[in-house]
């Protein structure tokens, strides 16, 4: 009886750990609870990666199904939220890849460090970023997916380089080049905006 009471109390409090334990046992209700708890960052990740609210909504329901099927591979020792975001990132990258010509997000020039410009605008300062928030977000949305995806994966999903590399199907070292190229585009956009 004590066991049942303890279980009930934990479930009532909706502790993430208790929910995760229930999810690990294949409890679909608990999975739905956890999913909706993470729904907001998940939708925003999809929105940032795919570029439109409509696509983000579609992606969200796809990710729900996909995550539920992939649940067997979830390791409860890791945070559920990050796992779920990774599943979402997988899905969105697949979508982007499907949209891209020949299913490729990047070409050789994107990945080459040699083609990076030698004189680049200086890094964005926090103050400037706060000041030009809307402008910066608009610039981010205007970036092509091949530049936007690495940025979102690194600075929103906070994925390490090797995880990003696996998602994008490139080498870990290329991730640095891709990210830097994306940052340059943002810096340029902002400096142009500043001039106007």
């Amino acid at each position, binding site marked *: 009886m004590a*066991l*049942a009471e303890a279980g*009930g109390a934990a479930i009532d409090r909706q502790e993430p*750990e208790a929910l*995760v*334990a229930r999810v*690990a*046992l*294949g409890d679909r209700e608990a999975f739905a609870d956890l999913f909706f708890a993470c729904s*907001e*960052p998940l939708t925003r990740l999809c929105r*940032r990666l795919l570029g439109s609210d409509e696509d983000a909504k579609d992606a969200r329901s796809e990710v729900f*199904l996909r995550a*539920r*099927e*992939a*649940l*067997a*591979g*979830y*390791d*409860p*020792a*890791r945070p559920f*939220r*990050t796992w*779920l*975001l*990774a*599943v979402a990132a*997988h*899905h969105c990258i*697949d979508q982007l890849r499907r949209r891209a010509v020949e299913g490729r997000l990047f070409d050789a020039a994107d990945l080459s*460090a040699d083609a*990076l410009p030698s004189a680049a605008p200086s*890094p*964005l*300062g*926090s103050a400037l*970023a*706060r000041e030009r*928030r809307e402008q910066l*977000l608009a610039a981010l949305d205007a970036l092509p997916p091949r530049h936007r995806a690495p940025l979102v994966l*690194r*600075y*929103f999903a*906070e*994925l*390490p*380089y090797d995880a990003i590399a696996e*998602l994008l*199907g490139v080498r870990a*070292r290329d*991730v*640095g080049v891709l*990210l*830097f*190229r994306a*940052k340059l585009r*943002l810096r340029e956009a902002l400096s142009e905006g500043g001039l106007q």
Partner: protein
Amino acid sequence: MSCPPEWWVAAYVDQGIEPAEVRRLEAHLVGCERCRGRVLALREEARALTALLADDAAPARGAVLAVGPAPARGFAYGLPLAVGVTALATAAGSALIEMLPSGLGWLSPSTLLGVNEMLFDTVFLLRDRAPGWLELATALGALAGLAAVFTFLAGALLRRYAGARALAAFALLVLALGGSEPARATVRFEHRDSVRIARGESHAGTLVVSCESLEIDGIVVGDVLAVCERVAIRGEVEGSVIAMGREIELRGRIADGLIAGGEQIAVTGTVGASAYLAGERIVVGPGARVARDAFLGGERVRVEGEVARDLASVGERLEIEGEVGRDVEVRAERVLVLSGARVAGGLRAHLPERERLEVAEGAVIAGASDVVLLDRHAHTLWSRYRDGRFYTWTAVGFVASFLIGLILHALAPSWFAGRIETGRAFFASLGLGAAFAVLFPFGLVLLALTIVGIPAALIGLAAWAVSLYLGAVVAAALIGRSLVRPRGDSMREFGMALAAGLAVVVLLRNLPFVGAPAGWVIALVGVGVLLAQAHAAWRRTRRPAG
């Protein structure tokens, strides 16, 4: 060292370079004020971007992301290749076996490997050589098995209806099991080298025996369950007898039925109900009487005594010299009805040739005797497709599997969560399933050798058969999903996928030549997927969230 490019410093800031490279860069930073400045600026930029993207709900700092299982990217060539190779291999194998001339029947894998004899030999050898070890292992196994079943039931009940109701239900279950008839009957477990109930002795209650030789000269008032090398019943059993052994001999009287499997079975006594006998040589000797039906399956079957009702037999050779009260139905290579035989009903023999039925001069068959020609190839290949019942039963089987799949999906959706996306996964599942299909029955036989083990082994046998069936259903769902590609997991969508998958499975299973092996491959792959799922679930429960 000249100053590294800015993107490299940015990667360093993001912790995106190798430790060795970190050391080299930091060595450079010590002496380069310009690069130190870049590091600071890039770090600020990274923070700014994080803050910008996070809006107001940034994820916890330092969260390490576990990359989920990568869903299949694009089209995997491995899987179709693996399925193709397996299909070709099974087709070639079964075609070879089908086309083998009957004279070369001994080349058939099961005969060649002597699977039956090997099984018997291994079991009895183990019994002889390491009885102590075997007993301990099997007793522990039986206990562990029962404990596992109970834990599973308790866990399932608690999960489903947490609270007092679950405990009440569980208590009821325990009471029901503990208080059931077999448990209360006076069961005598015997496990020695030889067990003998001497003439004049009697045993009241069920007798469960596992030993080298069992001899009953006295009376057993109850049932007998025996797994022994030799079983000899010369006395009386006021119940049924279920026996497995090398040599089984019944000279006395059994009030109820006899179910026996062994190398040699000889009945010269009386069976009060039906006899179901399977073995290499079966003799129902002169003076024997089976009060109801006899089902005899063996390489050589000889009936000299009396079968009061029907006689059904499957095997290579059947000889009838005694009396059969009703009809005889036999499927064999050769049937001899010898002089002195009396069949009160008809005789129907399924034989490869008409001449294979020989009725001697003095034999009497009261009813019609007809031979149904059993053309090996025509029979196995095409004849069943001309039979209406084939389609009825296929449809019934399809509906049953479909309903079972739906129920299972509603109760335990995680059973269907496994998937196969690569050739490697396919072979892994097939191997796992095959290992289970072969090793599990072996384990059961060992388990059955100990007295504690017999009930557990019977439960296990049922579980084995059920899991093969469910394996096929799970595999059908996998096939169906890959065909229909449902968007969701609702009852309707799953049902559509399952129906499509089952249709494919039923079709494959009924193909000539490859049907049977294909059915096995499908079931084994499904079992493999189920086992992998169970293992994953077990690992998850062992490593709870912390």
